[in-house]
């Protein structure tokens, strides 16, 4: 499988970026970290907009930068689509001319993505003849994404493209990013500091802190690795699961999802049976029961689980990493831990009080 390998070591007056990356060239990778952690700088290094003195960057079989050999391709020769935090549309061109700017500059046989395709996916057909300053922020950012896509890039870099937009506009654009990735199969590297964007988009997370790589891996693996959990802020997500719609129970207002042979109930969803859905569970919504008690419970979602790891988070609480066929974290009190005498390798039942679909998430 094709991979992206990059090493950068750049010193700025008050900041030092030192990163060694190795990622598959597929799916959506989110660069995540607090502001000042070097996400944007790393993205600019990947594009060649910042030049690391001893940098190295390889995409598949193509070497884009190898300072040991004095090689660093300028951005305009790399097959990269770049969307900046601000739309940066060209004010002297119409929307159509902005879209065509890059399209006209690539060779005919490299044009894999058509104008019609982009206009449809991004829903901007009605804007084509407008001047750019007449567009709303969300519309401008959609045009910027479309303009980048029309260069048929082999790698799409997005630098917090939603940062300047309000929540409603964000929700308007997020599905587009998901769609363009699904329909056009372009690997995406996406800079974000919003946990909600990660949960909706990411296949993979690269965690940055003060210019250093903290960790990298699949989304659920990263969210459930106990030592990384502090890095994801106050929203205590215990797991993100890619499940499938099993059946609907409209009389109870419920939809049943299947995940690795176990079942979860969520409020009724307008999603066809067999379709994939991404759900998340907050670690504080998971409680643990030792042995299957005979007393009936009102909790619908009960999963068999095995304890993998226990980590103290603060004075009163601990995080328990469970294996339910995938990792799931439960946040419980230290007192409960002592009362139940929980320890690794023990079989327990996880009672899950709420499962949310990711589209419902707000910050």
């Amino acid at each position: 499988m094709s991979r992206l390998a990059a090493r950068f070591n750049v010193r700025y007056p008050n900041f030092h970026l030192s990163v060694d990356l190795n990622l598959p060239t597929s799916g959506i990778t989110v660069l995540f970290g607090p502001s000042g952690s070097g996400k944007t700088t790393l993205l600019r290094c990947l594009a060649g907009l910042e030049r690391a003195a001893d940098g190295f960057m390889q995409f598949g079989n193509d070497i884009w930068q190898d300072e040991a050999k004095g090689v660093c391709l300028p951005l305009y020769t790399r097959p990269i689509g770049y969307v900046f935090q601000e739309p940066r549309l060209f004010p002297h061109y119409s929307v159509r001319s902005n879209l065509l700017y890059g399209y006209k500059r690539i060779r005919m046989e490299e044009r894999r993505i058509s104008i019609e395709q982009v206009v449809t996916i991004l829903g901007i057909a009605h804007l084509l003849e407008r001047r750019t300053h007449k567009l709303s922020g969300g519309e401008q950012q959609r045009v910027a994404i479309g303009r980048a896509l029309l260069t048929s890039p082999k790698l799409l870099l997005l630098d917090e493209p939603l940062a300047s937009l309000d929540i409603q506009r964000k929700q308007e654009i997020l599905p587009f990013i998901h769609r363009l990735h699904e329909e056009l199969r372009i690997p995406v590297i996406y800079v974000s500091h919003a946990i909600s964007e990660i949960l909706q988009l990411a296949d993979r997370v690269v965690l940055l802190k003060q210019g250093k790589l903290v960790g990298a891996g699949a989304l659920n693996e990263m969210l459930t690795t106990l030592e990384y959990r502090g890095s994801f802020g106050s929203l205590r997500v215990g797991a993100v699961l890619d499940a499938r719609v099993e059946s609907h129970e409209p009389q109870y207002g419920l939809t049943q999802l299947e995940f690795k042979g176990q079942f979860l109930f969520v409020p009724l969803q307008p999603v066809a049976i067999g379709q994939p859905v991404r759900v998340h569970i907050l670690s504080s919504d998971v409680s643990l029961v030792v042995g299957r008690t005979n007393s009936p419970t009102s909790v619908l979602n009960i999963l068999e689980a095995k304890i993998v790891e226990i980590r103290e988070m603060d004075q009163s609480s601990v995080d328990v990493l469970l294996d339910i066929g995938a990792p799931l974290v439960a946040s419980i009190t230290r007192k409960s831990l002592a009362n139940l005498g929980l320890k690794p390798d023990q079989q327990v039942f996880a009672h899950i009080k709420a499962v949310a679909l990711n589209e419902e998430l707000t910050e």
Partner: protein
Amino acid sequence: MTEMDLSALWVTLRLAAMTVIVLLVVGTPLAWWLAHTRSRFRPIVEAVVALPIVLPPTVLGFYILVALGPYGPLGWLTNLTLAFTFTGLVIASVFYSMPFVIQPLQGAFEAAGKAPLEAAWSLRASRLDAFLTVISPIALRGYISAVVLGFAHTMGEFGVVLMVGGSIPGQTKVLSTTIFSHVEAMEYAQAHAISAFMLIFSFLVLLGVYVANRRFPIHVS
């Protein structure tokens, strides 16, 4: 206007046009460098560029005359005597009008910033392509100001022309020096005609620029 006045007008227009063309070619990269460099030499270059604004034109003219003469560095390098020729006048005017072209361009490039350039690069435009198709249209107002100010300022120069050009009819005699010789010869009517012409011409040029700016505003998001 006499035939001599007309030839002076022609010399003046040619001089102003040549000066502006040379300054646009030389000044664009220099203004771009000044707008974006982090070099510590930048204030020195900026000060040198701005010198003609504060220097008496005779001082500038004197040094250019010395440099252009057969024993001056430029005269020696080219093995030509450039003083008292039209070419010499163009060289002198280029220095004299330099700040009026460089400064508006530098301001326009600073206002445009690097952001649109990076966007153009990400859309496969090479450096020159990005400059021509994105930066220069965004900096259009800066270019209009540079051309108008450079042209008008060259038309109005007197001291430098007198020092370097020597007022040779058909070659280096321009309108401003013609007015002076008319006044010296007590030909007030002719002096009046040319002065009025320059006044009205300058006003119309500036009016045209301001109207154009108003009618075709450039939107920078």
